[in-house]
């Protein structure tokens, strides 16, 4: 799976996710990537793209949950991502996500062994990583 999340200088957010799914999957199997609220979500608060064990991400409605705990619990982006990765992935599901907020924050969180990811901000910060 690949994904991208963006926030511009006016705080407008967008997210996208695309995948071939699981190796050796049954034909017709749908994962989390096309499910708004599970694999992808964006609103006026944040934008999120998820990846990992699709069935666990669907059960946890991961992408929407990041926005929900920001809206309802008033968490910041990092807290929201940590909360969702730690609490919403039941049954040992392994996954990761990238997220931006309307305030210009950018965060990555995962509980799997590594995640291919990269991020950059307008003030010149840029980072690409695989492991913790």
């Amino acid at each position, binding site marked *: 799976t690949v994904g*991208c999340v963006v926030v511009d200088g006016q705080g407008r957010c967008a997210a996208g996710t695309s*995948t071939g799914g699981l190796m050796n999957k049954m034909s017709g199997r749908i994962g989390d990537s096309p499910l*708004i609220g599970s694999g992808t979500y964006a609103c006026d608060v944040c*934008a999120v793209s998820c990846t990992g064990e699709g069935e666990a991400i669907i059960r946890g409605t991961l992408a929407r949950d990041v926005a929900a705990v920001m809206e309802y619990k008033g968490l910041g982006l990092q807290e929201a991502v940590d909360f969702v990765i730690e609490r919403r992935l039941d049954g040992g599901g392994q996954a990761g996500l990238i997220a*931006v907020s309307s305030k210009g924050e950018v965060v990555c969180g995962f509980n799997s062994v590594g995640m291919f990811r990269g991020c950059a901000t307008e003030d010149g910060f840029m980072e690409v990583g695989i492991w913790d």
Partner: protein
Amino acid sequence: MGGWAIAVHGGAGVDPNLPLERQEEARQLLTRCLNIGISALRSSLSPIDVVELVIRELESDPLFNSGRGSALTAKGTVEMEASIMDGVGRRCGAVSGLTTVKNPISLARLVMDKSPHSYLAFSGAEEFAKQQGVEMVDNDYFITEDNLGMLKLAKEANSIIFDYRIPLTGSDICEKAADAPPLMMNGLPISVYAQE
């Protein structure tokens, strides 16, 4: 309001034994795609346009599991899926079961912009693609030798995964299986798992 920010990913769950040159390839692709997004943001493209542009680039490179280089179904074919969402007005579009659309993220974008729906799948999505005139290619375009090999290993792993006593010859699954239970992801040893 802060400044602009962007993040990209190429999947979670990475084989700890991934060769260093593959790791470097991944880093370079992520960096290249980030730079495409950064220059688009500096040119004042909208966030939704930047997201589509960057993911099209990731779909076109066979390194990650999307578009070209997608994971294979048990039948050895490709069925791709994608979704996109604009935080402004929470507009969204999604597609599943694509077999000939070169860039699934762009069809998801067209579902959002040009259809009354949020999600189209399989033959309906392929029909919509034809109507919209998006680029369409043979299913073979998406299939790589690497993934054909991975599918073979994944099929073997499913049939023998619970029987560590039978070492496989000539595949590094067997070495690992012999001395330690392999890291698992979605029921597969991480060494054959294609990050979804």
